[in-house]
């Protein structure tokens, strides 16, 4: 028997496979396709203090081996989530982790305070890296000073496991990781999407209503792996890795590069049951190589 249990700070996951915020809705949407209780965790769709309608259509452009999105954090706000969505999913047999967004530090604090009181949720992912909002979001995560301030402010009010989601749209992601670690993060998750753009040459127009959007999918995987390796070697807290994972082999690569847990994102759109097969694939890999504990694989890249 392989041990698949992993800890991210005080957060206990039954296995290292989770689903990425914005790609798995609130989990229930996938219950026709798979047993969601098998997951290590679900990072639910990004939450904000108030209702957000998100950006105008078109919000998506397919690209070579990937896609751009500019959804813009459409959600009904934290109070609606706590009152109506969380009660329906909190007993789904897996860890539910909120993804916290804000236009200002005060927004981040207000949402985190509410989640600190929420029984049954043991961790939040502080999203300082959303590229699709006009104010806040990625602006916090690409500036060392504001990344530190946002993390410190939330750390003061949030007592459970705090995971900070990093933007890859920076020159030195390892330095950003160190900054949020020093500011009190229990873990970091990376990478969020890369800022990109798609153009319709016939119409001579951008495809997305917002002109730019976030690039995800297997096209970003090599850059994501490189960043996870850099961050893993720069900090002591656990890394939750993501960026174009399509199958168990990809997930293993992310673990070898330094991830304690991984998030399956865009792949959920193409194959809604893939995350459960990734769990099986990781277990099979461990069996094949006589690995007794999946934690032993983290960062075990032979150099």
């Amino acid at each position, binding site marked *: 028997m392989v041990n698949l249990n992993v800890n991210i700070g005080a957060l206990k996951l039954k296995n290292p496979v989770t689903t990425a915020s*914005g*790609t*798995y*809705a609130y989990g229930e*949407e*996938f219950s*026709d*396709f798979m047993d969601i209780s098998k997951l290590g965790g679900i990072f639910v*769709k990004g939450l904000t203090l108030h209702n957000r*309608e*998100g950006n105008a*259509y*078109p*919000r*998506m*452009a*397919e*690209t*070579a*081996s*990937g*896609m751009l*999105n500019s*959804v813009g954090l*459409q959600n009904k706000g934290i109070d609606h989530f706590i009152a109506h969505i969380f009660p329906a999913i909190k007993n789904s047999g897996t860890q539910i982790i909120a993804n916290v967004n804000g236009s200002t530090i005060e927004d981040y604090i207000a949402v985190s305070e509410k989640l600190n009181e929420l029984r049954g949720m043991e961790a939040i992912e502080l999203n300082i890296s959303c590229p699709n909002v006009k104010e806040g979001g990625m602006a916090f995560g690409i500036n060392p000073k504001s990344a530190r301030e946002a993390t410190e402010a939330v750390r003061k009010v949030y007592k459970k496991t705090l995971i900070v989601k990093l933007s890859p749209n920076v020159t030195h992601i390892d330095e950003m990781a160190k900054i949020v670690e020093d500011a009190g993060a229990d873990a970091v998750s990376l990478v969020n999407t890369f800022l990109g753009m798609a153009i319709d040459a016939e119409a001579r127009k951008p495809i997305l209503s917002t002109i730019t959007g976030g690039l995800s*999918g297997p096209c970003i995987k090599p850059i994501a792996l490189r960043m996870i390796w850099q961050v893993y070697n720069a900090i002591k807290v656990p890394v939750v890795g993501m960026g174009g994972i399509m199958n168990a082999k990809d997930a293993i690569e992310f673990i070898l590069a330094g991830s304690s847990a991984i998030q399956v994102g*865009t792949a*959920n*759109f*193409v*194959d*809604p*049951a893939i995350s459960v097969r990734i769990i099986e694939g990781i277990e099979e890999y461990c069996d094949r190589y006589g690995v007794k504990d999946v934690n032993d694989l983290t960062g075990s890249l032979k150099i």
Partner: protein
Amino acid sequence: MKLVRDFKVAGYKWLNESNFIIELQSAEDLPPIHPGNFAEIQVPGNPNVFLRRPFSIYDCDLTYNTLSFYVKIIGEGTATLGKLKQGDTVNLIFPLGNKFDTETEGPVLIIGGGSGIAPFLLLGKELKEKGIPMTFLVGGRTSGDVHLTDVFGQYGDILITTEDGSQGTKGMVTHHPVIQEESFPFKKIFTCGPDPMMKAIAEIAKQKSVECEASLENTMACGFGACLCCVVETTTGNRCVCTDGPVFNIKELAW
């Protein structure tokens, strides 16, 4: 219950060089399929086609476990779907979306623009079963866009418009006498096609105080409510075409 399942290509019916019907067969029984439902088809064998493609279910045969899709070639995904061989495996997520509401006294007018007729065969079958008379108004830029009138003719009267006048009445569907004339015997309109056409029809339906449902098409990443990419503005905010639609009563839409 939404399913992810492999199908085999059972055959093609080519309507012209860029329009075809592909029939896919499942080894297992199919769940109930309703008029308006769609499927997300994974296009095999083309690495440039990363995401699935949404298509209205054109026809289904529960005896042979087949689903058929009307496809117009517009890009690499649809072109690749047209080049498969009999027996090739194609993966589907289905059935997705809501359905047309056929609770009406009738008669009804069904307006399709080009490949927008795709969801109307199943609708026609259901209406015929209920004994509701229907008239199809089919529009295209040219006669090469107007297909399957023989099939639809088995369910109701067929009216045709083409913008170049090569078939039927010259002009857009909204120019057809059946819409322009003072007397309008229809109790409900169903429409599917390009957005500008459906918006014009929605306006006419409002003027005539007739119920109207439109089946919308949007770019989707998933098709089952996870990505929030395929939104349409409604009177209650942005809603997903894949799960809240694709069929909307026009009263719900912020058109």
